[in-house]
């Protein structure tokens, strides 16, 4: 059997944080905490057993130019093949997947972290990502307006109503109540959401995910090693990522759609030799804005176009429904951890598939989908298909 045929598995994971602030640790301490747990979980010594280290971060989030300088030590990658991906952790997983598939690397670790609590001027940092010529100079105040534009266009196209967006928040905020990482979960009714005022039309603050600090580390291995290291490997059947357009040309975006989810999903499904709907048992889907959960479900082809809000209304997306979506509570409950957001969703899927999700464990799940987006103002998304 050739190496190209060898599958890639997740064999260990560790995390630290998921709190609105983490003053007890520096960002590097936090990275050490999560990676030490991951290596313990995989029962390996990173100084000998890991062939390459991937770290995902962005300079302006870190407050450091060339922040990869500070990556190797806490994750065990000093003087080893270590590099950073300026992107979401799921992009790092894609790199690890490819590294292993070349046959030159047996075990690869991926770390990503976000410490938004340390960013004093978060709104300005977001503004810093906007096209300096045609968008940044405008008087919009809040750069998250991009999401509002997509939400309105999406609703117009599919007939989803404001109530449906609110229902996503109700489902996810309540789902989070049984998840130890869901710092922003709360017991709410539809009325609470509908009676609160808009933050960015058509969404209230219940429907816009807040920020939290976390570091997450994954250990990936090829088939031979995976079988040696663990009794319950989770296989990465497919991983895809795609960019619709650059942030210097957001005008080229198709409003109310997310082509990047569709392209990323097609890439992942093709890798898994599947056509269209992969028939998953559950999904951890992008929801940093409520409407995005519905849109991403459709764009990843898990549900038919224009059907997501109807399924939501029927309860199909509930934890006991036909297709449980965000049983963890999603980003609305756990927060956005900047570039670690994709890994936080992958973590939830991994725990479900290994039966370690605790109070929010689903029964009989064998295949799950993770879909994450890099957030405003990007049009880059990642999709991972996992199974046991």
């Amino acid at each position, binding site marked *: 059997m*050739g*190496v*190209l045929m060898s599958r890639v598995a997740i064999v260990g994971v560790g995390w630290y944080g998921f709190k609105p602030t983490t003053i007890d640790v520096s960002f590097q301490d936090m990275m050490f905490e999560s990676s030490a747990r991951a290596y313990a979980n995989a029962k390996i010594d990173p100084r000998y057993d890991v*062939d390459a*280290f991937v770290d995902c971060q*962005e*300079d*302006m989030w870190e*407050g*450091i*130019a*060339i922040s*990869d*300088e*500070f990556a*190797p*030590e806490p994750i065990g*990658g*000093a*003087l080893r*093949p*270590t*590099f*950073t*991906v*300026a*992107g979401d952790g799921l992009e790092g997983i*894609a*790199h690890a*997947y*490819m590294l292993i*598939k*070349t*046959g*030159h690397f*047996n075990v690869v670790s991926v770390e990503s972290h976000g410490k938004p609590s340390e960013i004093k001027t978060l709104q300005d*940092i*977001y503004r*810093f*990502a906007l*096209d*300096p*010529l045609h968008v940044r100079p405008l008087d919009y105040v809040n750069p998250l307006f991009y999401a509002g534009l997509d939400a309105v266009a999406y609703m117009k196209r599919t007939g989803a109503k404001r109530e449906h967006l609110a229902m996503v928040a109700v489902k996810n905020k309540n789902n989070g109540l049984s998840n130890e990482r869901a710092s922003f979960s709360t017991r709410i009714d539809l009325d609470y959401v509908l009676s609160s005022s808009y933050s960015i039309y058509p969404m209230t603050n219940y429907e816009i995910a807040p920020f939290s600090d976390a570091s997450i580390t994954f250990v990936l291995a090829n088939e031979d090693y995976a079988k040696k290291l663990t009794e319950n490997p989770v296989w990465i059947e497919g991983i*895809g*990522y*795609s*960019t619709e*357009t*650059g*942030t*210097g*040309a957001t005008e*080229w975006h198709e409003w109310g759609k997310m*082509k*990047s989810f569709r*392209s990323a999903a097609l*890439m992942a499904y093709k*890798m898994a030799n599947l056509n269209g709907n992969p028939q998953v048992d559950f999904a951890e889907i992008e929801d940093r804005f409520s409407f995005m959960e519905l849109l991403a479900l459709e764009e990843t082809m898990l549900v038919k176009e224009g059907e997501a809000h109807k399924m939501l209304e029927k309860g199909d997306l509930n934890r006991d429904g036909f297709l449980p979506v965000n049983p963890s509570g999603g980003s609305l409950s756990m927060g956005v951890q900047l570039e670690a957001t994709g890994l936080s969703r992958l973590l939830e899927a991994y725990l479900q598939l290994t039966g370690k999700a605790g109070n929010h464990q689903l029964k009989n799940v064998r295949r799950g989908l993770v879909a994450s987006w890099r957030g405003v103002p*990007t049009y*880059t998304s990642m999709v991972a298909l996992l199974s046991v």
Partner: protein
Amino acid sequence: MRSNIFMKDRVAIVGAGITTFMRRALETPRELAWEAAKMALDSAGLTLSDIDCVVIGSAPDTFDGMHLKGEYLGDGSGAINKPMTRVYVGGGTGVFVPESAYWHVASGVCKKVLVVAEEKMSPAHPHPQYVFKYIWDPIIERPLGPNLLWIFAMEMRRYMAKCGAKKEDIALVSVKNKRNALDHPAALTAANITVDDVLKSETLVWPVNLLDVSPVTDGAAALIMTSENVAREITDSPVWVDGIGFTLENQHWYNRELAFPRYLNYAARMAYKMAGIERPWKEIDVAEPYDPFDYKELHHIEGLMLARPCEAWKLVREGYFDRNGELPTSPSGGLLGVGNPIAAAGLMKVAELFWQLRYEAGKRQVKKPVHKAVANAWGDLMQAGTVIVLSN
């Protein structure tokens, strides 16, 4: 890392593009990326629709003044409804992007990859060097008010002390590279200068003078990399990636010996092993060692094992590394001569080897026959070593 006996398909470079290297460009960063990418596509006879993946390299966001710079460069780099990621190891990024493209192809995930590196340093005011204040540890180092040149000067001073090299020996590298660059159409600081000119130029941080340093530059470079089957259809003269290596040292640069670049040596050994090279000093025909500073080329020649530790400066005096010498280094003119748009400069070096190995470098073509070539880049706080070995 292990070598892989199952690999049938090799990875090839089949096209390259570059913009003029400029002190100030009218183009926006995304336009610079597009210009280089378009040229690379044209050179391989491809259009954007042929490309299935994009890899971007760019150094700190604080130069261009764009947060999430990879996302910003996306469309200019061809990431329009395509998989795109930006990899990042500081100054080492330029050589690291084609390394990353290597595993995009070698894994079987992508067939035709567009590799783009861009840097626009001119937006940052009052001076791009100010940006480098933020590369230091925010608590232990930044309060000292450091300038980037400090760390290079310290390393150069240490190299001089340990190896017995003098400033005038090291200046020869600047003389050589700026002269080589006279034949490079993209060059920003090509010149016929003397050792004396270097020594008499403004002292910035002793022992570093103005002409020891590469300039602030705007520019972009691009490559097309494909699988072997695809490459055979596109060209009769693909250039093969034989080996890749990368290493990141610890961040505590002031807890380390600075005279020898261990970070690079580890990466070089990884790349040579993969390429099956046992005696690089004999087997490598042409090299593009990273030269943001003149001493850095010597440092890197030693790290790449093209000369013994502390001996590169002696060989420079003998003309060993000249374009018609025994082992030509930086025939392009390097960062000192062509310019230093950080990530794009590293990729320019790989592009130069691509042209050298295809005998397309025109006036820059080295005299001897070439079969194997190596380029490296350095990054971070004397930490990142990235090495790529190519052959024809």
